[in-house]
């Protein structure tokens, strides 16, 4: 009887301490050099979208912020995370609004449900162009229900709209849920990392990838920064 109580107490202790031992990797993504200027997008062929933007939107291939920060960079654990089989139950959302893809870059877990909706008054035809996953494209007239899809292999998939050529985005299908998108100030955070050795990869759609290795021992926060060389064109 006493042995059983002791075992339960020990297990509880171990579980709690293992949870307590969850580290975080955080940092900033920046660039060096001079990036190309974002170009304004002329949506005049689609007046229902053009009128939603008081000033024209600009291209999102490279989105920069103050202090040379880079936004929309996917930072994720590329080695060492053991959650490949744990597919999150909730869906990720991709919206077509104002003839733009929101968000521009959408990371998701392999086999996680992807829900695509059309908030515009015009039809869109969403066309992701994968190399190893199954290629499909679907038209979505206004007011029709969201499209539900998923990808079963990790891949960086460019997404375009067949009807509106300026619409571009990315589906980033990863083997892990430990990912983040850098914000306007370049900051990213990867919490809830159990102790272990990890490789962190940062991916920017134009500037490529950078990697860094990090080891988590307890519940510390490790800082990892990434710096990309900007391209003039």
């Amino acid at each position, binding site marked *: 009887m006493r042995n059983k109580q002791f075992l339960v107490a020990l297990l509880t202790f171990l579980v709690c301490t293992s949870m307590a031992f969850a580290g975080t990797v955080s940092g900033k993504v920046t660039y060096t050099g001079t990036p190309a200027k974002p*170009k304004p*997008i002329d949506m005049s062929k689609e007046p229902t979208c053009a009128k939603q933007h008081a000033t024209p939107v600009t*291209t999102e291939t490279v989105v920069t912020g103050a202090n040379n920060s880079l936004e929309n960079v996917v930072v994720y654990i590329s080695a060492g995370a053991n959650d490949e089989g744990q597919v999150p139950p909730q869906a990720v959302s991709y919206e077509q609004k104002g003839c733009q893809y929101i968000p521009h870059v959408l990371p998701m877990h392999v086999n996680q449900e992807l829900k695509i909706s059309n908030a515009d008054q015009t039809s869109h035809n969403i066309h992701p162009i994968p190399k190893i996953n199954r290629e499909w494209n679907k038209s979505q007239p206004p007011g029709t229900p969201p499209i539900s899809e998923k990808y079963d292999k990790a891949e960086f998939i460019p997404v375009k709209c*067949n009807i509106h*050529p300026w*619409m571009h985005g990315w589906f980033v299908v990863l083997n892990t849920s430990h990912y983040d998108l850098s914000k306007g100030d370049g900051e990213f955070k990867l919490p809830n990392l159990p102790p272990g050795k990890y490789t962190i990869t940062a991916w920017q759609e134009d500037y490529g990838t950078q990697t860094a290795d990090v080891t988590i021992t307890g519940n510390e926060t490790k800082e990892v920064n990434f710096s990309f060389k900007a391209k003039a*064109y």
Partner: protein
Amino acid sequence: MGKLFAITIVIIAVLSAIPVVMNYWGPPPDISTHGYAIDEQMHETMWEAGLSFLAAQFVLAFFVWSFAGKGKSDKLKDFPGGAKWLVIAALVFVGTEILALGAIGQKAWAAVYFAAPEKDALTIQSQAGQFAFYFRYPGPDGKFGTPHPDKIDEGNQNFFGLDPENDVDSRDDITAAELAVPVNRQVNLTMHSKDVGHSFYVRELRIQQDYVPGVDLAVHFTATVPGKYEIVCTQLCGLGHYNMKAYLSVLSQEDFDKWLKDHAAQ
């Protein structure tokens, strides 16, 4: 019932003619230097075709009214002159029409297609691709950079596949989604298709020309009235064909220069 048929034909013929005569739905006003010849041709043809249409329907109605339901006691008669005069009438009437319209018509066609562009025509490149038109101006250096289909990156507005890193001529090229032209100046529009067949149609300009993949064509025109006009694709090119358009902005010379400067700065 023959009489009912005759009345119906007359009503249909008259009702059909009314919208044309009253010009309820007609071509928009012409803004080009060559279009007047096309409009005259259409006008001529409308008179001839319209009168032939009305005459034939009325004669059909009249004869059915007169001869439907006649019985065995009524004597059969032949049209005076028989077939011979009808054949002669057809040959003479239609033959003259063909010669007249053919002779006049070739002038209107020649103005668009047989005249070479003027030496000081403004050359603008246009590219049609599923499902938008994009236009390119050479920029201050007056030279167009080389397009590379494999470098096309639409998400980054590089619709022509330019390579500014390595191709100096392309660095100042202006790519735009609208076709801005100065008024009263001839424009030589080169036409390139990125993928499949498309067509360039501006109703007011009285210009329509297919883009042929693999063949770079050109069409020239002079716009005479400032304003904003639709350029629509008229060659079935895929699912977005209905949504493939751009705008032609005819601007005064100063507005056009300002437009060029604004776009060069982007």
